[in-house]
């Protein structure tokens, strides 16, 4: 009895999470432009999507920015977390706290402050400023993810590696990196997702000539939801499903 209740509860949670997505995916195959009634199966929204030049361009832009910013943030964040762990320097604690502050500060504050920063620097908003902004808000997530794993390590492991003849670089490459890999992948995944669906910060930091998907969809939706967007969302859902599965398999292999 208790067991069935527990499963029922679990089922409810998952249904709550996934029913909207499921409905969206189903309607992306619905042969009707406006109706929410099922009118028959079609792939035409997908073909229209591919044919929609500006939308596809925004999609590709988004992927490029998400990829570039998540990779950069992952590299910088991993090195940062390692530095916080390995080296004792003045202001270390304060700096680590500031990482949290960046993570917790509202997107709108971040967006505006970055915009002002770019204006002061005299940078024209566009792909580059967008990339920098995305790296900035992804970075703390990587640092925190990697640091939480690294701080669980036996400190002597570093000393052992050095004792056995490794230079600092060899120690990082052969010991730290493989041991941190699951956290690095998790941090990268998080960054990729955060970057891909960011609206607020991107709104302030990209220019008129560099459109990205979330902003594009946002402006399109104001004119009503087109089934084309359902199709696009379904594709993106599939993409994230693949990414998560791959990441899971990779980290599993590692242990």
């Amino acid at each position: 009895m208790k067991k069935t209740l527990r499963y029922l509860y679990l089922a409810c949670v998952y249904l709550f999470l996934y029913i909207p997505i499921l409905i969206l995916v189903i309607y992306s195959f619905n042969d009707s432009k406006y109706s929410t009634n099922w009118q028959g199966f079609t792939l035409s929204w997908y073909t229209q999507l591919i044919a929609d030049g500006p939308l596809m361009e925004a999609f590709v832009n988004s992927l490029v920015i998400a990829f570039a910013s998540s990779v950069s943030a992952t590299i910088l964040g991993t090195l940062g977390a390692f530095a916080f762990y390995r080296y004792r320097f003045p202001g270390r604690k304060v700096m680590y706290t500031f990482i949290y502050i960046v993570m917790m500060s509202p997107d709108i504050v971040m967006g505006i402050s970055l915009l002002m920063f770019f204006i002061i620097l005299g940078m024209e908003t566009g792909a580059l400023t967008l990339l920098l902004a995305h790296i900035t808000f992804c970075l703390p997530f990587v640092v925190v993810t990697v640091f939480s794993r690294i701080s669980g390590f036996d400190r002597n492991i570093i000393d052992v590696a050095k004792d056995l003849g490794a230079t600092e670089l060899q120690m990082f490459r052969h010991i730290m990196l493989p041991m941190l890999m699951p956290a690095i992948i998790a941090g990268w995944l998080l960054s990729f997702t955060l970057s891909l669906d960011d609206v607020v910060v991107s709104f302030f930091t990209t220019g008129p000539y560099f459109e990205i998907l979330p902003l594009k969809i946002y402006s399109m939706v104001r004119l009503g939801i087109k089934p084309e967007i359902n199709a696009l969302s379904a594709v993106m859902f599939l993409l994230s499903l693949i990414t998560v599965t791959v990441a899971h398999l990779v980290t599993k292999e590692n242990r």
Partner: protein
Amino acid sequence: MESLPIVRLQGVTKRFDDVCAVDSLDLDIYQGEFLTLLGPSGCGKTTVLRLIAGLETLSAGEISMNGSRLNGTPPNKRNVNTVFQSYALFPHMTVFENIAFGLRLKQSDKQAIRHQVSEALDLVKLSGLENRRPHQLSGGQQQRVAMARAIVNKPQVLLLDEPLSALDYRLRQEMEIELKRVHRQLGITFVFVTHDQEEAISMSDRIAVMNEGRVEQIGTPIKIYEEPENMFVARFVGEINVFDGHVVNVNNGSAVVDIHGQLFPVQNRKKAGTGDKVRVLLRPEDIQVTRDADKNGGPALSGKVDEVIYKGKTVDLVISLDAGETINVTQFFNEDQEDLVYGEGERVHVDWLYGWEVIL
């Protein structure tokens, strides 16, 4: 023991902020010996090892190896390897990869590496476990991997930081013997750290007793146990009974000490003069117990048996002397000698053979 030390520590000092972990310590370590640093937790043993390994920087003093100064040489350039207290195996590597780690950094001949690793595995009796991961090994096996990982690099000096402290009693005894065997087979210098005096005594060629960052006494286990140079060493290395007394008479090499009115002749190693206050120290097994005072004819202290603890090979007695002290006595049990078995509350007299005492 050769004349020239392989590692020499001179005035070695290490301060962490406000604590002085190692305090101008001098120590010579000789080729091929099994030297133990023995001391209570927090006395700086680990820090000394880390200084030798190059994992900490000296605050003052100098460490030299084979006659050349090591100050500033990074750990990866020292011909020294360490077995850490926590083992610190690389969790993402197999046993083979763990052991091969050091070799792979220095050479690329796969065949030679394979050969050396299997040799090391043989030495620690772990052959066949090459492909296990650390978490699939027992504590004792992890310990052996940590050993193999260090010795495969053929260091001149192997540093071992309380390598047995995490093992249970039986396994520890087994590993003590193993460790001695490995030491004999390799013929390299071992610097072993422990806070366990029994371990130190049964394994070492020499023991350096440490306290608060300094060496209190250094010598063979027998010297350390039988002729402690100060109260710290006496108390730390095994149980000991202390009697306060004063010298009433000296004549070449001997002295007579008054303890609670009884006049005991003792060997005057300390060269005390008449009237000096001295402490007479006696190990529990060096004290004799008799039922009647006159049996040995000499001076004796009287008291009453408080507790009798039968330990198989020995019987331990706790005796409270009429003068107030409580002393511990260990008697080697002998079934033919029924009169060794004292009852609680029984009145006894204690004394010892001339020369078995230590005076400080």
